[in-house]
């Protein structure tokens, strides 16, 4: 008789989830489900609020990537006001976006995934954490802390706070960048670039030891999606949407983010609060695609900054066509850190960056607006409708992690079929299944917005803990 193996909770990711593996009579894993067990509901409870409040409400979705929600939301509000932000504001927003990418990628790589990479997938869970890494390889711990600190401090320097800053507003940013602050940031970048290059050198040497994981961690053909700029670079803050396939062919290009409903569908499954977006032309679930660092490096023809470009060329040479193994998300993350540092340097050296005009004003000019940017984990879309008073009547969010939902589910099945033997379970086997999810770096508190299908239990408790009422659905 078959049985179910539950991994609960999935550790070292952002948010709460579990993995359910179904084992058949012959002891083989027959299905795998990645379940997001938390529910947020931001799309619903923002209804009725004035549109200009949205950036500050929406950034509260997440403590790791609030800047992405802030930017996507502010861009949706820019669209509601039908204005373009001042040139300096556009570049300052881009720096903020890249700074967040650095801190978020550093968190994912060093804090969450490096324990598997340094200490081994089979290491004792007691030691398999950032502090275990620091004991075994202190230099790597230093690098992670320095990079994350730089990202956080850059956000704080620009926006006043590391988490949930209010600096980005509809129409631009609240305060221009001073020369002193610019110089303070500029002074730190050479050391950060040096660290990023050392990390890449180290990781490339280590790759050989992970051949089995590379082969089995969500390594399959899929589409890739992301924003691409007019000069064929990954468009982190702005661009048009491109889909490519596993052979590297462009499947769809120059798609306007505001038309996302024409080419993206959203399916809902009864076992999770996370939606399943898919490419409409291929239907559900065949329209599976991946987003985020791996996708972004697969989508473009060049990286755009000198040092990252060299790394990108080497990365793309891993496979003849698209790089398919999701284990390489880690590798792509390090290249993106280097790219982001070089790009921040470019922006800071542009004289426009300290211009005083950092915000334009306008009133409501459209009743519908879409904002889109690349969050660290992939493409983020905020879509709002308002009434004539500017109050939100409807909101839809498509979150980076959600885009990867189909691929994550299929990825854990692939890894579980390869590693899990139900007659003799080991912690290391199950950790490898979790590590597939970690490679995608999901942010579940961001991405859990489906409603209406999962069984829901709401309990009303008195201050002393007594159950006063309960509803089950």
């Amino acid at each position, binding site marked *: 008789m078959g049985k179910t193996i539950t991994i609960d909770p999935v550790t070292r990711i952002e948010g709460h989830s579990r993995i359910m593996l179904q084992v058949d009579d012959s002891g083989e894993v027959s299905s795998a489900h990645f379940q997001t067990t938390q529910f947020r509901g931001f799309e619903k409870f923002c209804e009725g609020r004035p549109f200009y409040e949205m950036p500050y409400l929406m950034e509260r979705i997440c403590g790791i990537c609030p800047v992405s929600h802030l930017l996507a939301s502010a861009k949706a509000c820019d669209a509601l006001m039908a204005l373009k932000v001042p040139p300096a504001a556009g570049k300052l927003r881009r720096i903020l976006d890249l700074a967040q990418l650095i801190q978020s990628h550093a968190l994912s790589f060093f804090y969450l995934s490096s324990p598997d990479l340094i200490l081994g997938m089979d290491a004792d869970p007691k030691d398999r954490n950032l502090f275990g890494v620091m004991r075994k390889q202190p230099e790597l711990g230093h690098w992670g*802390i320095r990079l994350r600190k730089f990202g956080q401090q850059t956000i704080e320097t620009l926006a006043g706070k590391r988490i949930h800053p209010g600096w980005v507003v509809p129409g631009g940013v609240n305060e221009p960048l001073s020369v002193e602050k610019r110089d303070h940031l500029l002074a730190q970048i050479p050391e950060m670039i040096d660290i990023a290059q050392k990390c890449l050198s180290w990781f490339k040497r280590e790759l050989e030891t992970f051949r089995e994981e590379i082969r089995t961690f969500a390594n399959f053909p899929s589409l890739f999606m992301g924003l691409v700029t007019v000069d064929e670079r990954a468009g982190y803050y702005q661009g048009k949407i491109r889909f490519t396939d596993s052979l590297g062919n462009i499947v769809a290009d120059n798609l306007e983010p505001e038309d996302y409903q024409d080419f993206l569908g959203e399916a809902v499954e009864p076992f999770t609060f996370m939606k399943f977006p898919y490419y409409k032309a291929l239907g559900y679930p065949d329209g599976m695609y991946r987003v985020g660092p791996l996708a972004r490096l697969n989508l473009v023809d060049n990286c755009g900054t000198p040092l990252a470009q060299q790394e990108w060329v080497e990365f793309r040479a891993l496979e003849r066509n698209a790089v398919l193994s999701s284990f390489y998300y880690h590798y792509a993350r390090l290249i993106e850190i280097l790219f982001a540092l070089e790009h921040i340097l470019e922006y800071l050296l542009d004289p426009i960056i300290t211009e005083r005009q950092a915000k334009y004003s306008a009133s409501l000019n459209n009743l519908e607006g879409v904002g889109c940017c690349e969050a660290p984990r992939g493409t983020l879309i905020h879509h709002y409708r308002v009434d004539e008073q500017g109050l939100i009547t409807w909101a839809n969010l498509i979150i980076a992690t959600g885009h990867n939902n189909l691929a994550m589910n299929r990825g854990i099945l692939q890894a579980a079929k390869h590693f899990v033997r139900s007659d003799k379970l080991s912690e290391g086997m199950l950790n490898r299944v979790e590590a597939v999810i970690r490679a995608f770096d999901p942010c579940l508190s961001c991405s859990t917005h489906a409603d209406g299908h999962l069984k829901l239990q709401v309990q009303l408790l008195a201050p002393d803990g007594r159950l006063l009422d309960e509803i089950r659905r």
Partner: protein
Amino acid sequence: MTQSIILACGNPLRGDDGAALRVVCGLQEGYTDPETEICCAQQWTPDLAESISKSQLAIFVDASAAIPPGAIRLVALSGRCEPPGLTTHSLSPERLLGLSLELFQKVPERAFLLTIGGASFEHGDQLSDSVQKAVPAACNQLKALLSGVTLPDSPQF
């Protein structure tokens, strides 16, 4: 090298939990010292360890539900380093000092935890009356520590 670092912890949208941030705001009014780094956060995270290791004085400021509302407790932390533990989301002052020692082989010569007792940690951006009244005194203790005055540990509540 930064001489002093103040690490204020709290959520300004949860009532008295924001007391530490208010104390630091009070300190900043009329007080500027380029050798004092001020860091306000909702949680103390590992990336603070480097700045701590570079300081000669570290003062952690936090609110607590474990001491009477409005009470101020000062505890010297020098030598009270603890192993960092498992979580990377939030660390205690002792664990941050332990991490600083483990990773950077240095800890501040002097370290303190200044705690203000809170009455209410519910949603809201206002401090309760008792905590509001305690802010100036806590701010004065901070200034005294920064000026090099040695204060005795507070009695246990």
